[in-house]
């Protein structure tokens, strides 16, 4: 069976003006001096298109921190890709947005930390909320697709109605409400971020009602925390099956957190052709398909649905990247997740302070 990297996530820099307490970047980030040059990135985009990639997600860090972002957008669009910019909005002027659109930007995805300014700024470790609202209003008037992405967790999940009202007020077509996933920086803040079962249940009802009411006007995607799921998520659509991530220095990864897995040697797009990295490199083949699986995954009837879940989460929680994702109710290590949820659901809501903030790379 042959797999195609339908989407490419290009982390063009790890530099970012925000310090979000749940940032998905690795704890050890790439510095500015190691970042790939403009022409290296454009070469990567061309090769990806030849492999069958359709969607490019320009991500970071904050992509706007790169002075050559307009060239990157132009290069990607000329190479035949659908270009999405995932941004905090910090540093986006009306003039720069116009230039990006002229260069071929198709879609802008703006992250918001909350509906209330004080918590939003507290989570981001920066005064960015008011500015983001301005960017949202600006983007809405431009001829591009616009998605508002709001990250939710224990501290703000009870305000979901207000979050949806904010999106309506801003006139966005698409709202993505994503619960924090526990990798990278979020792990240190997990007890303050994981919602209770009751909060989650209510949130599902709120989303369902809003979807019904806003049908045809706004599309709402809702990502639940997988700790509460019965079965794991098909992480990245399966290891090395649908997505490829390139980090600022050019290292090709099957997912955001893959570098945490010991013993894997990741190839660099500056040194090896992308086609070889995707199809042949040992790291991309390591957990592709089913050969690596242990029981209960190996004989599970869901093994082609969720592919055993997330390898990084298995490593993080069960200390074994080959294990069944511990969030799976069938996993031998599921007790770890049960204990975490037990704690979260029986203890009082921890104060929204004492956060561990993401530190910016030099």
């Amino acid at each position, binding site marked *: 069976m042959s797999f195609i990297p339908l989407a490419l996530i290009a982390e063009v820099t790890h530099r970012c003006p925000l310090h979000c307490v749940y940032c998905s970047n690795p704890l050890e980030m790439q510095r500015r001096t190691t970042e790939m040059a403009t022409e290296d990135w454009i070469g990567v985009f061309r090769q990806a298109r030849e492999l069958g990639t359709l*969607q490019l997600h320009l991500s970071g860090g904050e992509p706007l921190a790169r002075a050559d972002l307009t060239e990157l957008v132009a290069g990607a669009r000329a190479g035949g890709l*659908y270009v*999405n910019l995932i941004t905090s909005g910090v540093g986006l002027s009306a003039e720069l947005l116009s230039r990006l659109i002229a260069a071929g930007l*198709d*879609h802008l*995805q703006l992250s918001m930390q909350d509906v209330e300014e004080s918590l939003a700024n507290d989570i981001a470790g920066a005064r960015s909320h008011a500015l983001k609202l301005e960017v949202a209003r600006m983007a809405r008037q431009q001829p*591009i*697709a*616009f998605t508002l992405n709001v990250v939710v967790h224990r501290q703000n999940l009870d305000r979901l109605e207000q979050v949806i009202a904010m999106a309506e007020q801003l006139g966005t077509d698409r709202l993505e409400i994503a619960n924090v996933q526990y990798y990278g920086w979020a792990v240190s803040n997990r007890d303050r971020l994981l919602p209770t079962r009751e909060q989650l249940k209510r949130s599902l009802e709120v989303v369902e009602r809003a979807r019904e009411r806003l049908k*045809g006007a706004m599309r709402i995607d809702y990502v639940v925390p997988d700790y509460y799921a019965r079965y794991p998520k098909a992480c990245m659509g399966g290891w090395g099956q649908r997505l490829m991530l390139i980090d600022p220095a050019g290292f090709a990864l099957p997912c955001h957190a893959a570098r945490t897995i010991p013993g894997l040697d990741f190839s660099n797009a500056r040194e090896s052709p992308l086609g070889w990295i995707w199809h042949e490199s040992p790291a991309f083949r390591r957990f592709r398909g089913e050969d690596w699986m242990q029981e209960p995954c190996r004989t599970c009837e869901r093994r082609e649905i969720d592919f055993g879940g997330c390898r990084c989460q298995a490593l993080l929680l069960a200390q074994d990247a080959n294990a069944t994702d511990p969030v799976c109710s069938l996993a031998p290590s599921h007790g770890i997740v049960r204990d975490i949820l037990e704690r979260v659901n029986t203890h009082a809501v921890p104060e929204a302070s004492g956060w561990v903030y993401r530190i910016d790379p030099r």
Partner: protein
Amino acid sequence: MPHLESVPRLAAGCRVSTVAGEQPMLLMPEGALRLIGTSLKIVELCDGQRTLAEVITQLQQQFPAVDPAKIATETVTFLERLHEKRVLNFA
């Protein structure tokens, strides 16, 4: 059901990609739709000029062997699906 006099057009940030030697794709945020056969013809007719009624009439003329009522229903169903995905607007 959208009004027959409304004008269907692709939403901002949604476009048809035609690359030589490849099947045309409708590109949109977070996804792509392979445009096969009639779906390509329908999307091409939604140029922001024609009304929904005109799009249907045009298709009925192009496919005289197919039941006109079936063409109308299937076209509306397809466009409504795109509308729900926020890929298409009825102006």
